[in-house]
């Protein structure tokens, strides 16, 4: 087999993302929309498909879908309908899913992301409402079904096939997730299955414009694994074509559904793809169409919050935060909102940003906590930054205070600062002057060096006093005292 030149090929990737909407109750029943809980407790006759039950549309879910439409600037259908998608499986209580096949609520739209400083726009093909299935649980001699999740409102967002690398796919998915959080449409908690990705991948030679056959990798719920899966599948497909260049494309790569095996790092065929007609789509006769007016949509538009990309631009333009840092800061809504609140106290956006995404992020990661879980308040963090900015503490002391904040989140930073005398830098000029004199006595050659123009000498001298005071002296005051003294000479 001749060498495979992977660089001659490019992947074409499209994502179908299922997101659980943040509503009080399920899409077609008043049962609670909750994660966890004892099996089969958030259910009623509609969720278990009892004969004689009828679905009832949840208005809040429609509103959330409209908000998403507004957030991505999709065309919001004023008239959309529901359909039955039939297939037999135990987690499917009616053996048909209620979805929107013929007339979805949203068409088009764009997800804006920033990849390596460059703004990219990825188009959405359509998005629609549908209900989630229950969950199968397998035991040694039998399997059970938990219908708590059955009926949870989902919005399925189908992108255009226009991503050409795992990086782009992850950027799209991440930006979409951030947007959903900002709109309060979904929490998209990956661990709880709040957002699941199906990846459609094909490859083609770089010059080609036509699409070759694609396969689907289903149910990815981690961006990292998705990235690995895409990498693996790209290689597999290229190898398939290169191994059998004689075969027509549809035979070299036959449509199917794959899953990603984390242990082997390979994609594995699950089944041949069921064609559209096997689902026997038919209009859902138990539900009336969703009819919206432009006035109603406008009323929701007024409630739109600042969107992630808008916030990103504001951070780099108005707050002068570095683009890379800003991109990280806005990714989680909680963190970004935290920043906004803390800024009131901190006043220095760049410093605050760095402390959040570097210093605290590092400490939190060690403890395995999220910012939310740490229970540290925005005020506390903001005040810490202001203490540094007003030179009441050194950077070193700030780090010590930060450690304490994590251990005792109920204590605010200024309280920690006040409590511990060690955190108060020595500003007593008389005392500091003694140290200055002592140091100058010890290192007379520094005086000569400074006068000779070696400014490093000053830093050395200040360093000595800092050492002597175990970092507690105020470096600015020591600096000033030395200068005064040296200039006298």
């Amino acid at each position, binding site marked *: 087999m001749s060498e495979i030149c992977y660089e001659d090929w490019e992947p074409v990737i499209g994502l179908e993302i299922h997101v659980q909407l943040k509503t009080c109750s399920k899409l077609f029943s008043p049962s609670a929309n909750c994660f966890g809980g004892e099996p089969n407790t958030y259910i009623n006759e509609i969720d278990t*498909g009892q004969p004689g039950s009828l679905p009832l549309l949840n208005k809040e879910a429609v509103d959330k879908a409209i908000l998403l439409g507004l957030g991505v600037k999709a065309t919001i259908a004023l008239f959309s309908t529901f359909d039955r998608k*039939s297939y037999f499986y135990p987690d499917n209580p009616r053996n048909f899913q209620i979805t929107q096949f013929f007339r979805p609520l949203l068409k088009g739209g764009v997800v804006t992301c920033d990849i390596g400083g460059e703004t990219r726009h990825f188009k959405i093909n359509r998005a629609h409402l549908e209900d989630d299935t229950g969950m199968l649980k397998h035991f040694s001699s039998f399997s059970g079904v938990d219908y708590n999740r059955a009926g949870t409102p989902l919005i399925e967002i189908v992108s255009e096939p226009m991503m050409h690398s795992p990086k782009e796919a992850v950027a799209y998915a991440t930006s979409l997730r951030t947007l959903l959080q900002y709109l309060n449409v979904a929490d998209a908690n990956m661990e709880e299955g709040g957002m699941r990705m199906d990846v459609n991948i094909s490859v083609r030679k770089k010059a080609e414009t036509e699409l070759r056959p694609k396969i689907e990798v289903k149910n990815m719920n981690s961006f990292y694994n998705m990235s690995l899966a895409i990498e693996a599948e790209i290689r597999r497909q290229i190898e398939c074509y290169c191994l059998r260049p004689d075969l027509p494309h549809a035979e070299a790569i036959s449509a199917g559904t794959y899953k990603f095996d984390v242990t082997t790092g390979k994609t594995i065929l699950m089944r041949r793809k069921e064609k559209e007609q096997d689902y026997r789509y*038919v209009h859902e006769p138990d539900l009336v169409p969703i009819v919206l007016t432009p006035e109603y949509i406008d009323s929701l538009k007024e409630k739109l919050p600042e969107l992630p990309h808008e916030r990103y631009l504001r951070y780099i333009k108005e707050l002068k935060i570095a683009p890379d840092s800003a991109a990280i800061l806005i990714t989680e809504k909680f963190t970004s909102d935290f920043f906004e609140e803390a800024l009131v106290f901190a006043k220095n956006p760049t410093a605050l940003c760095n402390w959040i995404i570097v210093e605290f992020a590092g400490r939190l990661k060690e403890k395995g906590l999220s910012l939310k879980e740490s229970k540290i308040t925005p005020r506390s963090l903001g005040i810490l930054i202001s203490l540094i900015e007003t030179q009441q503490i050194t950077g070193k002391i700030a780090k010590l205070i930060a450690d304490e904040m994590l251990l005792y989140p109920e204590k605010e930073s200024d309280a920690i600062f006040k409590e511990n005398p060690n955190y108060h830098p020595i500003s007593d000029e008389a005392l500091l002057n003694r140290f200055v004199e002592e140091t100058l006595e010890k290192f007379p050659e520094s005086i000569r060096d400074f006068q000779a123009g070696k400014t490093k000498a000053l830093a050395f001298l200040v360093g000595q006093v800092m050492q002597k005071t175990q970092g507690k002296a105020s470096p600015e005051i020591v600096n000033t005292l030395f200068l005064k003294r040296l200039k006298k000479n």
Partner: protein
Amino acid sequence: MHTLLAHELHAHFLSGKLSAEEITTYFLRRIEAHNPQVHAFLSLFPEKAIEKARKLDQKRKNKEPLGKAAAIPIAVKDNIHIKGELTTCASKFLSNYRAPFNATVSSLLEKEDAIFLGKTNMDEFAMGGSGIHSAFGAAKNPWNLSCIPGGSSSGSAACISAGLAPLALGSDTGGSIRQPAALTGICGFKPSYGRVSRYGLVAFASSLDQIGPMARSVKDVALAFEIIGAPCSKDSTSLQIPPFSCLKHFDSFSLKGKKIGVPWSFLEKLGGETRANFENALSLLQNLGVEIFDIDLSILKYSIAVYYILATAEASTNLARFDGIRYGMRSPRAKTLEEIYEYSREDFFGLEVKTRIMLGSFVLSGSTETNQYNKAQKVRSLIIQKMKEAFQKCDIIALPSAASTAFEFSDQSDPLLEYLQDLYTIAANMGGLPAISVPSGWGSDGKPFGLQLMGPQLHDTDVLLFAHAFEKASGFGFPLPPLFQGDIA
């Protein structure tokens, strides 16, 4: 007491002439005596009924307010839920299934102090026009026990006809209330689609199903409709129209100058005694001052084909939930998931049900643009359009309810013959129109005929008024069949 009509029994109870317990006990004994002959009931709840009756007697004694149906014993078709009681739909699949909730119609009647006696026999899952397709043995026609009572509300029809209860609920998808009413010489009314809640009715074809009352007189039917024809928040297809009392207009209403349309070209093939009976009924109406117009409904010749495509398609999805996983029967010989599905449905569905599910699945197969279902929907729209045009020329459309009197059990060789039973009744379901069958006489074989009156959408009142006027003028009275005329010992 068996000759008394529902509203008469109610009046006797209110006046104190009869106690609720007396009424209830009487009919329970009558059922005990005659049900083995007609097999109208599948289950009975005598203790519950007597208990309710006693409560009502106490209420009356205490001069508490009493409901519109107080002390009226009611039989309910076995596809409508009464909480805690069996809902078998005359199928082995649900032979052990107890309703987990009350149908809205059951709650409404309960609130008006009706007394439920038991659940009635039917064609399995409402699929049939004879009563033969019950998994528990067919109900029989009280006018001739070797003949079918019609279907699918066979048990409710037989029950009323034999005087085993004065009021019953049936369901009508393609004529299942009106046709058996005609064949058993009683009154059966299918309200406008959306007037009566389907919550708690085991769905057959969701866009066609309606629950309706069956009784020996139009007044009784109107009384029941007043109670059950109410908006329901648990059924999205329920119309938000408050119930209308037309009983008070019965006496003042006159047919003089009213217009009735007859689709003569569609009735071309109608012959023999059925035609004579129909023409006789029209003459009677003309004598009352009605003008008869010819209307063009030749499109109705496609009704059967359209119906059997649309109804079976919807039914195939509605019955998918019966899979042996969550409720109902599970085949004991199933060892794997596939087998649970296959064997449960194999063992516990009757032949007619299986046939219709297969037909329904078939018509939904293939591309959604060109499949049979799609075509049938278009023809349905045409039918609705044509009927709207017809109603511009007349107030009410008259048709025979059935093509002939009840055929014998031994006659049913060609399944398609049974499908043709629905020929005159399907149009009303297609258009969601109100339609009633009133007794219009007997054939030389002593078996009853029915006249069908159909009105424009939401003109339920007109239909009832016309029917009552005809009933009054016909002078038939409310005779019981010879075998059931006698009082019980």
